[in-house]
């Protein structure tokens, strides 16, 4: 068992060297300013490539949606490309691409994010476009109908026309009782149809205010000059009353929940298991992050080695901890090999979980989680876009943009006992939701391939 053997002194020296070399090369510096209208501005200067990224993270996502209006935050995101006072419909992305940039918008439960990456001489263009739509979105019935169609096609493409598309929705619907996290980001077709121009206008006024957003800029800029430009474009936009905080509290689950779905587009069974866990970056989250790595990350993980490779029951079994600011789910998902039993896979998953609770965790497993987060920290600052996204997220969610420099240290501080403790506390039967997806026979000749 040489892989567990080590000389403590040599290892300690090596670890110190590694940390030192990382922090020297990869510490991110930034400025953090609040404008008069409440817009938080974070600027991280880096002149290694003639590129800038501008990111606006709005503090609104699908968890802010009310019943009957699911999918709204994301539908709204599409409206942000349909024009504002000084920008025509479609002009935003046309200007970005025609000047060599890239851009997009993305919505999840927690936030709605917009970005532009451009050659560094186009900083004004990006700031102007973002400020104009923050100040004065142009909301018309025609634009809304057009984007409603696009979003409904997005739903068909990603959910309704895909095997296991509905599985993802089923897990959250069964696991959560509070509507905040219960429904999907894409929303239901009926609710998308119900969204009105007045809904869009009210949503814009409530959530798309400077005091409800973080603007983060990274790359080839001079901080002071950049901040002056930001003030020029953004500071005149009026603040709005802060939106009421959304109630995300989730009642404690007291018994296992279970559902079996039939999926006409699937040909192989799949099992999904979700456990309620506390929010990301809460004290137990670090242990849960390492636990997800030990159980389900990569080919050295316990699920892969035992269930995929040794027992040959599944083609993949993965695990992930939560990234929610509110109550989260620790998710496990397994795709069965042809001809194997769901019951056997489920039992095998639980057996591995019990082994973590009771048994040792190898040094390599702890090193793996630690080094993986160090590597992600390094990778996330290599591009201006991922750097700006991380700064905006850490500032908006946890009021601490410096987590970009310190988060990996939190993971490095986790001990095997912490991993065992969180596994024993959260990965218990009464706290789990199990969704099994079975192929539904489609009738005709398509069964031939089984």
């Amino acid at each position, binding site marked *: 068992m040489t*892989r567990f053997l080590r000389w403590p002194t040599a290892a300690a020296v090596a670890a110190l060297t*590694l940390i030192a070399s*990382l922090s020297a*090369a*990869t510490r991110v510096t930034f400025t953090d300013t609040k404008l008069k209208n409440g817009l938080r501005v974070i600027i991280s200067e880096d002149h*290694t*490539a003639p590129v800038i990224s501008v990111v606006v993270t709005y503090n609104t996502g699908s968890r802010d949606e009310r019943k009957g209006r699911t999918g709204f935050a994301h539908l709204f995101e599409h409206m942000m490309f349909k024009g504002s006072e000084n920008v*025509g*419909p*479609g*002009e935003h*992305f*046309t*200007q970005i*691409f*025609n*000047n*060599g*940039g*890239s851009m997009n918008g993305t919505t999840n439960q927690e936030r709605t994010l917009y970005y532009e990456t*451009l*050659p*560094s001489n186009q900083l004004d263009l990006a700031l102007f476009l973002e400020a104009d739509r923050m100040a004065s979105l142009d909301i018309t019935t025609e634009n809304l*109908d*057009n984007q409603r*169609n*696009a979003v409904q*096609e*997005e739903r*068909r*493409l990603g959910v*309704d*026309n895909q*095997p296991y598309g509905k599985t993802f929705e089923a897990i959250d619907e069964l696991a959560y009782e509070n509507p905040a996290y219960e429904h999907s980001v894409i929303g239901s077709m009926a609710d998308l149809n119900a969204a009105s121009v007045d809904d869009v206008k009210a949503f814009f006024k409530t959530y798309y205010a400077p005091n409800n957003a973080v603007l983060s800029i990274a790359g080839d800029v001079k901080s002071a000059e950049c901040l002056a430009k930001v003030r020029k474009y953004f500071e005149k936009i009026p603040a709005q009353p802060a939106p009421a905080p959304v109630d995300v509290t989730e009642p404690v689950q007291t018994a296992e929940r279970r559902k079996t779905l039939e999926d*006409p*587009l699937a*040909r*192989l069974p799949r099992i999904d298991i979700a456990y309620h866990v506390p929010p990301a970056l809460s004290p137990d989250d670090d242990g849960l992050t390492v636990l997800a790595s030990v159980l389900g*990350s*990569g*080919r*050295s993980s316990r699920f892969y080695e035992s269930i*995929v*490779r040794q027992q040959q029951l599944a*083609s993949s079994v993965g695990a992930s901890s939560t990234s929610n600011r509110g109550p989260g789910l620790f998710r496990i998902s397994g795709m069965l*090999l*042809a001809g194997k039993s769901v019951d056997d896979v489920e039992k095998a998953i639980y057996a591995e979980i019990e082994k973590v609770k009771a048994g040792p965790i190898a040094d*390599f497993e702890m090193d*793996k989680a630690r*080094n*993986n987060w*160090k*590597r992600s920290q*390094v990778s996330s600052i290599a*591009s201006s876009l991922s750097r700006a996204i991380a700064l905006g997220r850490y500032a908006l969610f946890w009021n601490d943009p410096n987590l970009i420099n310190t988060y990996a240290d939190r993971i490095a501080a986790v001990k095997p006992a912490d991993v065992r403790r969180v596994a024993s506390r959260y990965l218990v039967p009464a706290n789990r939701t199990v969704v099994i997806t079975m192929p539904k026979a*489609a009738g*005709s*000749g*398509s069964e031939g*391939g089984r």
Partner: protein
Amino acid sequence: MVAKRVIPTAAVAIVVAGGAIVSASRQGPPPPSPQASKAVVMKGKAPVSTELLKITLPRPAEVDLPNGVHLMVLEDHRTPQIVFQIEVPGAGGYFDPADMPGLASITATMMREGTTTKSTTQIAEQLERNAASVGAGAGLSSIDASVSGSSLTDNFDDTFALAADVLLNPTFPDEELQRYKQRIRTQLIAQRTQAGFLASEMFNRVLFGTHPASRVSLTAPVLDKVTRDMLVDFHKAHWVPDHAVIAMSGDITMAAARKAVEAKLAGWKKGTSAAPSADQPPQPGEARIHFVARPNSVQTNFLVGAQSLVRTSPDYDVLSVMNEVLGGGPTGRLFTILREEKGYTYGAYSGFSAFKVRGNWSANTQVRNDVTEAAFKDLMAQIARMRDEPVPDKELEAKKRGMIASFALSLESPQAMLNNYMIRHLYGLPADYWDKYPQRISAITQAQVQEAAKKYLDPPRLQIIAVGDPKLGEMFKKYGTVVTYDTEGKIVSGS
């Protein structure tokens, strides 16, 4: 400054300053893009910089080693990471035995499953403990196979040593081969549930016939037949250094890279193989509408296209510009019309590939069932418009400007830059190929773009693939000869 040259267009956004410094001038602000559709309205008030961005392309250090390996290193010390790739021409799927399509791909994948000193589990543990990666792969129709990896600088020596071990000393354990076969058999079943897979499988089949370029997946019969001995033999015969390229980028110098290669790959001895060459695929038969009936579909997946060209073709840049106008992103005509104007789809794009053998050009979109016919007509109308009408000046200039300026973004990624240089080397392109990129794109004219559309999007060459609800099949008969298939690819009707 070297000779000052005026580039013959208004729309040059960047100048490349490197081994060959060029200068450029532009006149006035960039043209707002024209309104190809009422869905896009340019108010033109946003401030666009007209200042030229001077960029310096970093250059890789390059050296030829005695065993035939060409080593390329692009230094970039911004972050303590190193990425490497060992590219081996002649070990890709193009060189599969005729009765064993997929053998190269299986061989490459299985190389990571055990070496003379390490089991598959030990390999996984070493890599994942260090947050490093090593993988081996070969395309089903590619000329090359490769071993690639990445790690933090501190783990580079161990990671490269492991990659070398995987390359030189794979043992292809039979036990792991059996496990691999079972996993892949499951994947073969699962992939048939994806409409996108069914579309690309059919597209490649009708475009390339029995040429290796037609392959998109392993097959069950080959999995049944393949043995450990076949893998050993294929590896021995094809994984030779004679024409290989090793490329490294990131926190490393040429001296350190060379030292690592000479130390860890000392046993990789030059063989006597000629530079690998490949035959072009025959042109497909007459264009048809190939309809794959997929029960329970709520969308129709379209894939329309033809064979394209080889990477070294003089038409390559022109086709790039033509493709950009038609479907190269959210500003392309397909997206603008099919999504932003009509609301038929979440996305509509086109793209193309080119290798030593001809690749393909294709347009794709996914639309809901009840607009399938209307969307199909618009899709084909936009392709026809590329042939029938010159692209308006302003639209063309805007596209070219965007393509050139976006080149600056690749400077953020040493890997992307090095990949460009690898392409230059592997295809024998001129040394200043990337320095001249802005000039070449700028110089492309309306007439060239229209000629390229006529040549590459010629209606008799355009194969049409549609995957969707069986009830929609009948409708397509109005538009051409329809061949209908089931989701296993068997012909149900037509020919």
